[in-house]
């Protein structure tokens, strides 16, 4: 998979990459007795690829923060609208979807290829079982293509060199980081990771991301969720609007800017009529 172009893309000086070499232990072994973020999300979206531990963890969250169900659905719907915009108005034909998760309806390549059948999509996930699902279910036929990379977001060098097997990094790429940066603690410098990825793509590329918002949850809810920390599968960091905005440093945010996931480019008349509000920031930025 690794092409010469990919090798050139290697960003060996980036801090995230320097640390990446020693991280072989990451991919979680498959243990259904422990809640797993991808499967929890699957459960929230009404999927069937989840286990008792996943449902218990989600149910515990829902007792403290019932809006999580709406937030998960709104987050997923944002992905669809963002890819629609990217493949449509923005004319993007190459997608790097990091943190793919368990396949559900309207996955990135389906939305993109419905608009531009020749679209190429590389899916990245660090969970081998999630990736097995992606390889089985996220396949394209016809003019487009899909590929799959087994890597942690922090291993940007691995992601970029392997993605170069399918994507042409001389042409614009849309990088999507949907609800995944929450899994990167400040110690691992998520802003440097995103900068490394965006440094590797040319001007006119896009970044689409969503992030759990620390400033959209009241104190009581945050404390409640904090109390669940030990029962949750892994580290989870919410960030403020300002911290999320910094992921788009030196980029131009497309309208309407950094908003809640349900507020981003809803079709007129299709905006949620309920009073539900998510607690996730989202944005789509264009690299200058």
């Amino acid at each position, binding site marked *: 998979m690794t092409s010469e172009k990919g090798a050139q893309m290697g960003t060996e000086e980036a801090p995230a990459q320097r640390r990446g070499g020693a991280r072989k232990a990451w991919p979680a072994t498959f243990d259904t007795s422990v809640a797993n973020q991808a499967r929890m999300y699957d459960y929230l979206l009404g999927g*069937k*690829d989840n*286990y008792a531990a996943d449902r218990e963890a989600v149910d515990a969250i829902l007792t403290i923060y019932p809006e999580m169900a709406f937030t998960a659905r709104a987050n997923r719907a944002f992905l669809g609208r963002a890819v629609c915009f990217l493949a449509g108005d923005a004319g993007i034909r190459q997608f790097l979807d990091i943190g793919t998760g368990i396949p559900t309806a309207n996955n990135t390549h389906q939305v993109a290829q419905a608009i531009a059948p020749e679209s190429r999509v590389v899916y990245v996930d660090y969970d*081998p079982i999630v990736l097995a*699902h992606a*390889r*089985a279910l996220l396949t394209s*036929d016809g003019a487009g293509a899909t590929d799959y990379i087994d890597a942690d977001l922090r291993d940007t060098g691995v992601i970029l060199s392997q993605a170069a097997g399918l994507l042409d990094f001389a042409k614009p790429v849309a990088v999507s980081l949907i609800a995944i940066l929450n899994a990167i603690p400040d110690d691992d410098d998520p802003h440097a990771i995103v900068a490394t990825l965006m440094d590797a793509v040319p001007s006119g590329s896009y970044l689409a991301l969503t992030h759990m918002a620390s400033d959209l949850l009241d104190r009581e809810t945050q404390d409640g969720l904090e109390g669940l920390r030990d029962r949750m599968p892994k580290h989870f960091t919410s960030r403020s609007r300002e911290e999320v905005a910094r992921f788009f440093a030196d980029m131009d945010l497309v309208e309407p800017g950094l908003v809640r996931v349900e507020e981003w480019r809803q079709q007129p008349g299709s905006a949620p009529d309920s009073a539900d509000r998510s607690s996730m920031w989202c944005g789509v930025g264009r690299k200058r």
Partner: protein
Amino acid sequence: MSTVAPDGEQPFSGLDDPPVDATVLRMLLGGQLRRLREAAGVTPEQAGMKIRGSRSKISRMETGKVGFKIRDVADLLTVYGVTDERQRAALLSLARQSKNPNWWTKYSDILPDWFETYLGLESAASTIRSFEIQWVHALFQTGDYARAVTELGHRFAGADEIERRVGLRVQRQELLTRPAPPRIWSVMDEAVLRRPVGGAAVMRAQLRHLIEVAAMPQVTLQVLPFTHGGHAGATGSFTVLRFAELDLPDVVYIEQLTSAIYLDQRADVEHYLEVVDQLSGAALTPAATVRFIEQVAQET
């Protein structure tokens, strides 16, 4: 979640003797209609009035004791506030299938009841996942390979019966080319590829056929190579059927020599789901699988 009959009956578990005139599809659809009615807060009397029937008609429908009129099901879904087109289409399709005479009816003399049940489920499934340790999956068998397998299982059958059984298997494969075919995701032990059922020539043709099948967009094949060592599928082949309708449980099918086991209880199903997930994660990727089958074909 996993109960498909009223009053806590478990119609699938250890189902050696299926109910006489209630197909699995009717039970699945009936159970679903009951859940939807209850969620909508509609009484059986009210529901019965809406479809020009009685309380007991609703009860018979919900317990899978009678066939469904498509119009009745459509009206009930409206009364229950089911407006999502995908959900409606999935349920109406179940209703249609539970009503139509099944294509396999003409084979009923050679089909045990427990296998007819499987055919009904298979044709209603949206995703079929399987682990095979002995044979190539029936949906992927060539005629010659199917004949060799059939002869092994029916040593005293006449030539006519063998041909009818092979014909049944071939007709079953029309599932692959029908409109909106199910996704089929099959993990095979390497032994399946190495055992030359029907002889080397038949097996080579079968392996070439597998490579063609693997190219179908809705089919995923993975091989678990011997080099992987031990694996989680210790007890043998099994199939997990999933249905498009969100509230329908997955069903695990395990075939035995003279009967079959159907599991739909969540704890049971999840155990198998976990194993098939594990096997899928451990097996070669779909792309590497095709290269592997090509290699085995050369060595066969």
